């Protein structure tokens, strides 16, 4: 419950671009986050452009070069697998799938979370209480099991994969959006009662919305790695995207099976995966610190 004076004080402190400017400056000072952003950007570019630059195709078999370790001479920079497929181009292709799933599923997650939370906050009352109770119950459930359940029952359509993975992580977002919606309702009352003219509404919109965007930004950067992780889990278990499409999880699975004889098959995709997750987490953490310094 925010007091009247709090609400008014907030309304008065309108930053012109100040909120984002401050946050950006603080983020820039976080060296780990900056390095992560650079690495991630580089990775994304490699993944998008790389396959076009490579002379090999991911499904291209090369019987002369099976099981060959990475070398600069024969052009297979990352080596090849049991069927002579170039690992580098496969890794990059896998990256496309993994990153795509990351983005799309996060958006799905966002939509579900925001929708659910906004609805709960807007309607309020008992419906809200029940909806939040459901969230509480789901919070400790191993969601992955349900996803696998769905995969088993309904097949491995890519759309289903995106949606199912996205449905894993909407709980936090729902809670936060609901909280913000509630306070928005409250502030709107204050607005109608106290402030004259439309300036009040604009002030509140200029303050609540940037707040919400900040939270969304943090949430997105922290969800993407989780989603990628889930997708690679599924792929690793053989339940993800169907071949010939490949993702980092599938590559790690294949690599793990051959790791005693051809460790490079494991190490390269694993490194890409781990580095991506690492960077995303650092950026997410850094963003969270930048937007709310008192958390540290």
């Amino acid at each position: 419950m925010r007091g009247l004076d709090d609400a008014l004080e907030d309304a008065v402190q309108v930053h012109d671009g100040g909120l984002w400017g401050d946050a950006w400056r603080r983020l820039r000072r976080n060296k780990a986050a900056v390095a992560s952003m650079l690495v991630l950007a580089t990775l994304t570019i490699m993944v998008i452009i790389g396959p076009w630059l490579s002379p090999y195709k991911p499904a291209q078999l090369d019987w002369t070069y099976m099981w060959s370790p990475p070398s600069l001479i024969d052009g297979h920079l990352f080596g090849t697998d049991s069927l002579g497929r170039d690992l580098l181009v496969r890794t990059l292709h896998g990256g496309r799938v993994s990153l795509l799933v990351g983005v799309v599923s996060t958006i799905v997650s966002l939509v579900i979370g925001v929708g659910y939370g906004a609805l709960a906050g807007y309607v309020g009352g008992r419906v809200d209480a029940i909806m939040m109770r459901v969230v509480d119950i789901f919070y400790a459930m191993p969601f992955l099991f349900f996803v696998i359940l769905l995969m088993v029952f309904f097949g491995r359509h890519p759309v289903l994969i995106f949606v199912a993975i996205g449905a894993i992580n909407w709980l936090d977002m729902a809670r936060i959006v609901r909280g913000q919606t509630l306070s928005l309702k409250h502030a709107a009352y204050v607005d109608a009662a106290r402030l004259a003219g439309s300036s009040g509404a604009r002030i509140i919109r200029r303050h609540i919305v940037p707040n919400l965007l900040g939270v969304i930004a943090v949430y997105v950067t922290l969800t993407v790695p989780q989603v990628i992780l889930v997708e690679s889990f599924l792929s690793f278990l053989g339940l993800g995207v169907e071949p010939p499409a490949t993702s980092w999880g599938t590559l790690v699975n294949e690599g793990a099976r051959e790791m005693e004889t051809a460790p490079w098959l494991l190490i390269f995709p694993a490194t890409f995966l781990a580095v991506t997750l690492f960077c995303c987490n650092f950026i997410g953490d850094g963003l969270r610190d930048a937007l709310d310094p008192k958390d540290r």
Partner: protein
Amino acid sequence: MLGYALSRATAAIPTLFLLVTLAFFLIRLAPGGPFDNERQLSPAIEANLQQRYHLDEPLLQQYGRYLWGIARGDFGPSFQYPDLTVTQLIAAGFPVSFTLGGCAMTLALIVGVLLGAIAAINQNGIVDYGVMTVAMLGISMPSFVLAPLLILWLAVYLGWLPAGGLESWRHFVLPVITLAAAQIAFIARLTRGSLIEVLSAQFIRTARAKGLPMHVIFLRHAAPAALAPVVSYLGPATAGIITGSVVIETIFGIPGLGRHFVNGALNRDYTLVLGVVLFYGLLVIVLNLVVDLLYAWLDPRVKY
């Protein structure tokens, strides 16, 4: 306290109900299941299912039978192994998974809290940054990446520990460590944040002003307050361990519930998969109840 426990227990019942009902209808909706007339199943399974599910009876009666079966612990026959019931498979696999998960959870709690405490006490020092970076690694590194790497290093190259199977206690070491890794990281971060907040609280300053020795302040004042968030994290932590066990058991070839689940998933053994999910769902609900009670005991401000 008892009243609180009862009220929380009764609140859990609708959830269970929902879960079971969903499961019931899911089985019937699944394409390629026994209730789908297009799919051809082996006659052995077909007969088994006909017998179990009394498919000629009205739907509501089937639902009733299903509920009654669940209440008695009968999850139906397995599709993969026509002679075995799901219940038997679960009973075989669960003790193994429980041992694995229990050890991992214990390890995660002990190591995680210790690391978090060390980081908090040395806040913003080298030790703090070091611990937190390692924690970040733990969170970012998927268990199925860590596991093969550890196997490669400790089992293949160094030969210290076995790579798979479950004959001796040695076989437990790598799986438990790998399973616990991610949770250690989460718990360490949680403990650190919580402890830092508690150490700057007013009542700690009062304790110092009273001239109390450091260890008393730490153990009696700081610890219970700082550990409260860790206790409420136990629910999601267990969910994480259960999830992780699926992969770990597959990689290390451990005959636990997780591996049964994966095999069931790959072989479209609907009843098994469903049975496992229901079983774990039940487990998680019970565990959450316990955690709620534990938290209420820890924090006297919780009203019950």
